């Protein structure tokens, strides 16, 4: 039981440390990274150069508007 408690506490610490106050931010960033990988192989680098910062900007805005 002590081990489970420790593992749970450890996991909660990292979750809180990385996800923090807004899960929208964490998910949005992962989506942006995934999208960059998907687009870079199917379209030109110039398009991804614009799309990546835009998705990140939208993520920040969404996390603030959904607070």
């Amino acid at each position, binding site marked *: 039981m002590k081990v489970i408690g420790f593992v749970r506490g450890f996991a909660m610490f990292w979750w809180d*440390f*990385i996800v*923090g*106050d*807004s899960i929208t*931010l*964490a998910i949005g*960033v*992962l989506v*942006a*990274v995934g999208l*960059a*990988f998907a687009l*870079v*192989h199917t379209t030109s*680098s*110039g398009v*991804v*150069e614009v799309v*990546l*910062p835009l998705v*990140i*900007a939208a*993520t*920040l*805005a969404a*996390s*603030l508007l959904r*607070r």
Partner: protein
Amino acid sequence: MSVTLMFLGAFLAATVEMVEALTIVLAVGVTRGWRAALIGVGGGVCALAVVVGILGPSLVTYVPLDGLRVVIGTLLLIFGLQWLRKAVLRSSGLKAMHDEAAIYDREVAALRDDPLATGFDWTGFTVSFKGVFLEGLEVALIVLTFGTNDGRFDIPIAGAFAGLVLVVTAGALVHQPLSRVPENTIKWVVGIMLGAFGTFWVGEGAGIDWALSDGMILVLAAGYLALGLLLVWSLKPRPTRRISTPEEVTP
């Protein structure tokens, strides 16, 4: 350019986090005695040094650079956007400004409730150690990400160390929480810098060939600053107009 930005990023991040750690350590020192407080600080700093010392070289040696850039860029982006989000919420008045004096008073009250034991004060040590280690962990990760991407750790470590020395010196001189540090302004700067670096490295790791090369970091930073200001403007509560009743209109 990126060397200066990396130094500045680590320096500012360390300054903000160490101001918060100093508040905790001061509260421990004043209520429980300086021995346990300072041993806790030493333990926390050593633990952080071990994290950077062990993880840094192994990451550089064993993980391919592109994969590393994606992982560290993602982490930087998440940290940076969290900082920027908090700064926007505070600037727009939707979240209270960080008040070191109030936090200090709360810590002192909580520590006074816990009776002092004979011998070594483990409560004081633990609170002090946790304060330094937890506040410093984010700085350690920022140092790690900057260092692993550039293949050299001296610049970000020097930046973080300069921040630590500045805060410790200021704390030793004034002997009270550093409530005048413009914490939210620093959060803005660090949030924007981490966001810009994170976006740039994630892009490079994914295979983007940035048109402006390193100069794109400045373009991204300017974009995030503009977005942040726009969000503050749109989130600021505005005074609502009240429709006057006929009685109020007629004299």
